[in-house]
């Protein structure tokens, strides 16, 4: 399979600080990839560039055969890329199912006229939307809470709603920003199974930002490591684990005995 997402020489600075410097990444279609790096390495900035929240200073983003540079977030979503956030960003006063239905917004072809006159088309679409939302909620395992207000659900369930919502627009690729942050080992194992299910059953390419090395090493087929905005390593989990530059970025440089003596 070919690359679904090709990022070439992407640059973004804020003031004088380069948050992303010359980053190039290839994501294979149907893969599970991770982007890792210490805090402040530019991972979330990279996601924000991909999804159109920030405009890159230079470089190109090719997704599924089209350029995403200069596209608005809703256009990026239409192109088939959706994401979740590090801190949960649900619509807190909507019900769970409504949250998922917002995710289908761009896929719905229905006019206000249809809705007010309640035409046959409206009923069909509405039934389809409701049915699909329930199917997605079942997929992530929280369908029994469909009609509850989302802010009343526990943290782990809110994460699941976010995933269901990100899948609602039938994306080709989902970007998950620290999806297991704050989860205990049991919950993060369940989350890993869910990510595999997303790829295997829905055929959606998954890209994660993740700090939990157990998750990263256990699930990823490809890993890119960022530090100070630059890509310092990439490859399979094994390659990355043994790369001295990665160890340095995470643990600091090993002081040799001669240096220590001085």
């Amino acid at each position, binding site marked *: 399979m070919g690359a679904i997402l090709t990022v070439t020489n992407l640059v973004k600075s804020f003031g004088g600080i380069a948050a992303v410097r010359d980053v190039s990444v290839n994501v294979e279609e149907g893969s599970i990839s991770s982007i890792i790096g210490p805090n402040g390495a530019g991972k979330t900035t990279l996601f924000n560039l991909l999804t*159109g929240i920030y405009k890159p200073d230079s470089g190109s983003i090719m997704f599924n055969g089209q350029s995403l540079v200069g596209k608005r977030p809703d256009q990026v979503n239409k192109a088939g890329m959706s994401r979740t956030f590090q801190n949960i960003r649900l619509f*807190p006063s909507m019900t769970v199912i409504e949250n998922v239905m917002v995710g289908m*917004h761009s896929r719905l072809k229905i006019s206000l006229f249809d809705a007010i006159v309640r035409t046959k088309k409206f*009923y069909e679409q509405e*039934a389809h939307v409701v049915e699909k939302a329930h199917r997605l909620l079942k997929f992530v395992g929280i369908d029994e809470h469909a009609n509850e207000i989302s802010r009343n659900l526990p943290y782990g369930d809110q994460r699941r709603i976010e995933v269901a919502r990100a899948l609602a627009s039938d994306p080709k690729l989902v970007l998950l920003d620290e999806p297991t942050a704050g989860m205990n080992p049991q919950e993060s194992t369940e989350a890993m199974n869910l990510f595999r299910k997303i790829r295997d059953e829905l055929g959606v390419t998954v890209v994660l930002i993740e700090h939990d090395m157990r998750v990263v090493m256990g699930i990823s087929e490809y890993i890119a490591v960022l530090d100070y905005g630059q890509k310092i390593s990439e490859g399979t989990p094994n390659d990355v684990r043994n790369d001295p530059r990665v160890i340095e970025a995470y643990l600091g440089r090993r002081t040799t005995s001669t240096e220590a003596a001085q």
Partner: protein
Amino acid sequence: MSTTATVQDRPVAPKANTLELVQQSWIYRFLLFPIGQMLIFIAGATILLTVIAYAIAIAFPAPNPNIDLVTQINRQLPGMIISGVSIGFVYSMIALGYTLVYGVLQFINFAHSELFMVGSATGFVVMKALEDNGVLKEWNPILMILFMLVCAMTVSGILAMLMERIAYRPLRGAPRLVPLITAIGISFFLIDFVRAGFAITRNEFNLTYPVRSLEMFATPVRVAIGETTVNVRTTSIMIIISAVIMLVILNYIVNGTKLGRGIRAVAQDQTMSGLLGVNVNLMISLTFLIGGAFGGAAGMLFGMNVGTITPYVGFLPGLKAFTAAVLGGIGNITGALLGGLTIGIVEAFLNGVLVYYPALGQRYTDILTFSVLILILIFRPTGILGKRVDEKV
């Protein structure tokens, strides 16, 4: 994925009883619920104010010994309630414009009162044109009101959209004070633009709706309640009916359609809505369109009710509607309805009672109404139904 599934196929919660089924049906959600809500608000405000009015009448007898205030209130009560409810609905419809825009942009559109004024002027132009062409008396009155409403709503709605596109969108992201001052500038511009327009074309800007020439509106309906008869103005009934229909439609649009879902999503989290494929700019434009259309409709109904308007007519109702929006909790649609009805009924009661105290007089109505705004801002800045604003990331 099958598209033949119907809504009834949705998995029902195991404990679904009849009440839940009723609540899920759209007749309840989009018809009975909003109308019930309005009735509860009206009843609540009326009962509260009636008690207060009698308390005042007993505690402070009128200075003129020939007048027994309690019997006066007895006689006036039905009239006060009806005029309070009708002006209350006008305030609610204007307050909705403030609240909708505040909901999506966290910004008070102080030029909204001018959308009301433009709606009112449009209503006049249309009605005058009908009269000049001699068709005013031939048309079915309901059809005519509908036509005037549609014209006023279209003009005000499109004007609101233009306002957002030209003046507010370029300022998005600027400090909060900047669009606020812009709004005041737009407000002045519109007032003088309309005034100049009428000054040039008609050489006057006191615009009198040709309402009196219609028999239907000239004579009030007499309703007998017990021993007293109450004169109910036809325009009051017209306002109440139109407002109820429009508010039901608005509730449906906001809570039952894809457009409403988009608007609510943008109100809660703009960035996230964009990422989910909602066109944020379009939703903001449509919010202005809906708010403007409601303001325009309110202006036209208000014009029919008072008879004569000027380009300055927007100021006071606009300010009172703003008070109403704050009273109910700004950003909250139900709150705008509650606040508008409350302010309207308070005003009608004050008008009815203050006239018996010559030292105060009806002019104190406005002063006391705006004291409500000050009291809310001191004691409950989030309004009656408002909640602490969710943390914005």
